[in-house]
């Protein structure tokens, strides 16, 4: 426990030192060094817990009304800590390259690195805090630091708006969380999450259901589940690449952590909670997936795919909940194991994709896929990292996304004897997941094909070349992780096994732990298949190359088939919009495509254009409602005459009645 406190102090000290007047490079270095020390300290505590050690607990006396602060690091928190901190460190390394152009400018780079330290610090508070106040404190530190990181480019009005949008949304989420904590506090008179869990497990009923819904809403907002995702694409598009990567891959996993943590401590859930989680998550996965198809901005696309992927992990958690309520350890292991493994895998490939997007933006100063093209040959490392991440995010073998989705699918197609309609509903969910997989394959092919393949579409952009090493190294590290966790998913599951075992403790079945072993066996097989696929492919490619060499049939080069047209140019290539037009047209009720066009007119048409843009339906609706509410409020206030004494009198009377009613209805009366 002391080491965790030291880590917190180191992070605060590093953040503070980064603010001192010094050269920007020194400030950034201070941030990195302090994160490294904190990482070593955290690992020395978290890894033993993760691999079978006892929980680490600690208390710290604090002033009234908090009482004693209670900390406990269990396997679940240790799992999240074990990768959140190193990934934040990698993100900070990436920032060294991404922010390099500001190092010689008057901008204070230390603030940025200090805030990255605060992100790491918030992880420790959230994943270790057993006290509602430290939990909320960590939650809030993460939200505020993320907001400040997003608005790095604050002179840009769009960026400020995106940041503000994020800030408001995340605090709306906080309101739900605080409401849930208030209900729990009134029922337990305690600040400790454990007591909340005990109360929830002993008192099933309406109040628990309300608390569950409040918590799911709040955590859903944090992790950007549909329909609480509207802030996300804006924030991701506006933030620097590493901040988007950290938000999507790491910071918003805190929402999923909190969800899983509350599920863990509140014992056996009702069956409807499992179904509710599945329905909520499937909607999120499907809609998030659909929205990735229409985007022109690569970072918005990746943002929506976060909504999709938290949905996929959520399906796993839903299956796990069903397993808990039906007392079926195999479903618990597959659901929670698969869901948590997907959280880890997603952190790997999502950061990788955002880093690749950042490399492209850094060099080309544009992230609109329609203006890019042909980057593969000029940025091969970035391109390879992007496609590996893309294949992984479409859950295709041989990379890591496949392993975790395989577990979730195995849970959905369970061989356990359950009600036939439940079984068919789960199969229907699996079909929806298959649809999501195909959709994300579509959008990733579209993005990769348009950005990296073919010819450059816009020659007015700067010449492309590979980004700086500071940016390539974190990206390559993530890529290696994606590949290794794909061919050896048991390595990932070794981290997930301990938290999954916590859930298996909740099932009364004595054979619970055999299921963990059988899940590991499944993953060994999946890893073998992925590795085998890679090996066979390498052998086949080697043989093909050798054969061509021996038969002297090395390929010759010629122009692309142009259907006989002699003067093709880069503008004639298939674009992102044309790639998705067919598909998007089928879903125009969900994906709003705004189309502005000016048709060519007259014999010598001058300027004609078509601009299509996929806008967020939820956001538009939200703004419409807000605008409408604003208007109705204005209308109402016009009808009221403020100088009318009757108004003041009736308002006062209403207030007195309300206060009186509250006093009379309150159970205990006034103290």
């Amino acid at each position, binding site marked *: 426990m002391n080491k965790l406190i030291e880590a917190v102090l180191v992070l605060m000290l590093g953040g503070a030192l980064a603010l001192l007047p010094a050269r920007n490079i020194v400030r950034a270095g201070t941030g990195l060094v302090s994160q490294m020390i904190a990482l070593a300290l955290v690992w020395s505590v978290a890894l033993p817990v993760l691999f079978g050690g006892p929980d680490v607990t600690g208390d710290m006396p604090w002033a009234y009304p908090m009482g004693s602060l209670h900390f406990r690091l269990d396997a679940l928190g240790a799992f999240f800590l074990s990768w959140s901190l190193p990934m934040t460190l990698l993100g900070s390394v990436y920032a060294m390259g991404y922010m390099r152009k500001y190092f010689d400018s008057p901008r204070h780079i230390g603030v940025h690195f200090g805030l990255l330290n605060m992100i790491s610090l918030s992880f420790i508070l959230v994943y270790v805090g057993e006290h509602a106040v430290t939990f909320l404190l960590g939650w809030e530190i993460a939200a505020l630091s993320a907001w400040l990181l997003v608005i790095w480019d604050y002179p840009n009005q769009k960026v400020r708006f995106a940041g503000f949008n994020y800030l408001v949304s995340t605090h709306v989420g906080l309101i739900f969380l605080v409401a849930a904590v208030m209900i729990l506090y009134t029922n337990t008179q305690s600040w400790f999450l454990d007591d909340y869990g005990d109360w929830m497990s002993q008192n099933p009923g309406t109040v628990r259901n309300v608390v569950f819904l409040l918590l799911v809403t709040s955590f859903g907002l944090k992790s950007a589940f549909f329909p609480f995702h509207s802030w996300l694409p804006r924030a991701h598009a506006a933030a620097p690449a590493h901040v988007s990567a950290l938000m999507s891959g790491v910071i918003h996993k805190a929402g999923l952590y909190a969800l899983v943590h509350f599920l863990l401590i509140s014992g056996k859930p009702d069956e409807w909670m499992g179904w509710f989680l599945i329905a909520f998550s499937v909607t999120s996965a499907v809609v998030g997936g659909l929205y990735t198809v229409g985007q022109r901005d690569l970072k918005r696309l990746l943002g929506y795919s976060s909504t999709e992927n938290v949905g996929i992990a959520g399906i796993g958690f839903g299956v796990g909940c069903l397993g808990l309520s039906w007392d079926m350890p195999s479903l618990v292991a597959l659901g929670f194991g698969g869901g948590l493994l997907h959280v880890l895998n997603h952190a790997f490939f999502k950061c990788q994709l955002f880093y690749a997007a950042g490399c492209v933006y850094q060099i080309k100063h544009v992230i609109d896929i329609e203006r890019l093209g*042909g980057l*593969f040959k000029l940025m091969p490392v970035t391109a390879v990292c992007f*496609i590996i991440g893309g294949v992984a995010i*479409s859950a*295709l*073998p041989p990379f890591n996304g*496949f392993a975790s989705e*395989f577990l979730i*699918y*195995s849970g959905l*197609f*369970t*061989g356990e004897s359950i009600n*036939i*309609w439940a*079984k*068919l509903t*789960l*199969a229907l969910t*699996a*079909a*929806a997941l*298959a*649809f999501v*997989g*195909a959709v994300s*394959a*579509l959008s990733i*092919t*579209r993005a*990769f*094909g*348009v950005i990296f*393949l*073919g*010819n450059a579409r816009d020659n007015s952009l700067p010449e492309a070349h590979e980004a700086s090493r500071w940016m390539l190294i974190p990206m390559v590290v993530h890529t290696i992780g994606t590949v290794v966790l794909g061919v050896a998913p048991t390595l990932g599951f070794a981290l997930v096994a301990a938290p999954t075992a916590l859930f298996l403790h909740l099932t009364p079945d004595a054979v619970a732990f055999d299921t963990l072993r059988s899940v590991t066996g499944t993953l060994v097989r999946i890893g073998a*298949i992925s590795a*085998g*696929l890679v090996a*066979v*492919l390498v052998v*086949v*490619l080697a043989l093909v190359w050798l054969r061509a060499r021996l038969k002297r*049939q*090395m*390929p*010759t*080069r*010629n122009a*692309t*088939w142009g259907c006989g047209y002699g003067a*093709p140019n880069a503008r004639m*290539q*298939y*674009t992102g919009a*044309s*790639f*998705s037009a*067919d*598909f998007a047209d089928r879903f125009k009720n969900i994906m709003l495509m705004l189309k502005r066009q000016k048709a060519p007119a007259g014999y010598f048409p001058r300027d004609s254009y078509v601009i299509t843009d996929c806008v967020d339906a939820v956001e538009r609706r939200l703004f419409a409602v807000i605008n409408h509410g604003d208007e109705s409020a204005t209308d109402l206030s016009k009808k009221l005459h403020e100088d009318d004494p009757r108004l003041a009198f009736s308002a006062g009377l209403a207030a007195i009645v309300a206060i009186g009613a509250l006093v009379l209805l309150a159970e205990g009366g006034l103290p």
Partner: protein
Amino acid sequence: MNTLLTLTHGVLVLALPIVLVGLVNRTKSWWAGRKGPRLLQSASDLRRLLGKRPVISTVASPLFRMSAYVVLVCGLAAASMVPMLGQFAPVQFSHDFIVVAYTLGLARIALMISAMDVGSAFEGMGAAREASFSTYAEPALFLLIGAAGAATGMTSFADLIGHLHSTPYFPVIVLPLVLALLILLQTEAARVPVDDPLTHLELTMIHEVMILDHSGPELAAMQYAAALKMTLYAGLIAALINPMNPLASPVAAILVSLGLMLLVALVVGCIESLTARLPMRWVTRYVLIGSGAALVSMVAVGLGASGL
């Protein structure tokens, strides 16, 4: 016994793509009153292509050549898990159908990437169509497996397809499932009415337009992989109908399955001869019929199991 079945499975997987394509073409020429190409013509075509020096677009990246072999290897990997002889597949384990579906998915993404790689105005069109039609085809396969899995209570591909004929639901759901598989075959293997392998107009092609720039051995790999996909789906239909258990009576089961697969090729050929391809905007609806049929069989299984 298993060795024998594995060997047969391997031989069928390697040989049938050529035979089935030949049979489909033969059927079509028979309907058209032509003599038609030899049954094994595509073998000669493939050999000819293998001997050629490939010509690659100047725009293409190294991924272009690689992806042809990714498609081929993935097809073969999937073939090792697809039950073609009934209740048997050389590689068989719990939930292997997910691996089948996703290895084929990897093949698809590789195919689409190689199409986008040459910077053509047409090939992206094919890739976009392939991508959007596959989003409708993929759920159909999983619904079908869901229905079969719920009916049999099994979790491996070979078991849930092979045991289906011994369940009481079989007479009710066999037709919708075969229909769903046939539509999947036509979608995934680019046959009429979804796609026409003989079309020569870039604007109306799907699969062919994606491989416009492939030549030599890469084209051979792509064509063989497409024929292999047709074989896999034909094999699935055969395994679904085949009443023989290959583990008990191997010879009969192999012969019945083989006969059924040839029959599927005949049916595919007849459909190609007698119908025109659908307008592109109707294709999605056609593919959705597959999902609908699978959904119907799911509901039938559900109603049957709850005793209604």
